[in-house]
């Protein structure tokens, strides 16, 4: 299921500078694995053993996937995935 994925500035070195790429997978976890197969290293920046990294926000269409199913969130053909690092600090 190809979905459009919007890549934040800090991760664009992985995608050769591309701001929008295409990813495939029935759910977010598989879509990230697909991205990693073409943009090695990107998955490591998004997930850890616990799932999505705490300070990375991923949105399916307009919804934060934390309020959907996290990495199990179903991705449909034509969906739009947006990745944004949290703006946070102490």
């Amino acid at each position, binding site marked *: 299921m190809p979905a459009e994925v919007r890549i934040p500035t800090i991760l664009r070195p992985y995608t050769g500078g591309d701001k929008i790429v295409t990813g495939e997978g029935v759910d977010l976890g598989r879509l990230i694995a697909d991205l990693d197969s073409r943009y090695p290293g990107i998955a490591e920046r998004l997930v850890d053993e616990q799932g999505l990294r705490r300070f990375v926000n991923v949105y399916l269409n307009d919804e*934060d996937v934390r309020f959907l199913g996290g990495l199990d969130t179903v991705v449909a053909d034509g969906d739009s995935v947006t990745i*944004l690092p*949290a*703006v946070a600090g102490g």
Partner: protein
Amino acid sequence: MLTIRGELIDAMAAHARADHPDEACGVIAGPDGSGRPERFIPMVNAARSPTFYEFDSADLLRLYREMDDRDEEPVVIYHSHTATEAYPSRTDISYASEPGAHYVLVSTRECGSGDGPVEVRSFRIIDGVVTEEPIEIVA
């Protein structure tokens, strides 16, 4: 070097005073590639904490969509420290994720919510390395 209008420095300081003792945070957006901070966007600190700040995740998406539509980028990302100096904390450094942005720190430790002096300093934070830079205030 950060070149910025004085009224924008005042706006960040006023926001920091108003939210003291919690940390205040926000962005000053500017045209893509210009490096010129122009549009002041105070954000809500979803953590409402004196030691931590985080943009609300829905607000963050809205902010980035809006900047995208206007061909803007976050030229300045600011937040306040309310009990310590205006220097990036370890947490600030580990979560800094806009290599092109000027990270502006405002300290209200002396003035609190009042009229006393605020400390305002600007930094680049790239790959965990902090570099302070001068601030040039223009009219």
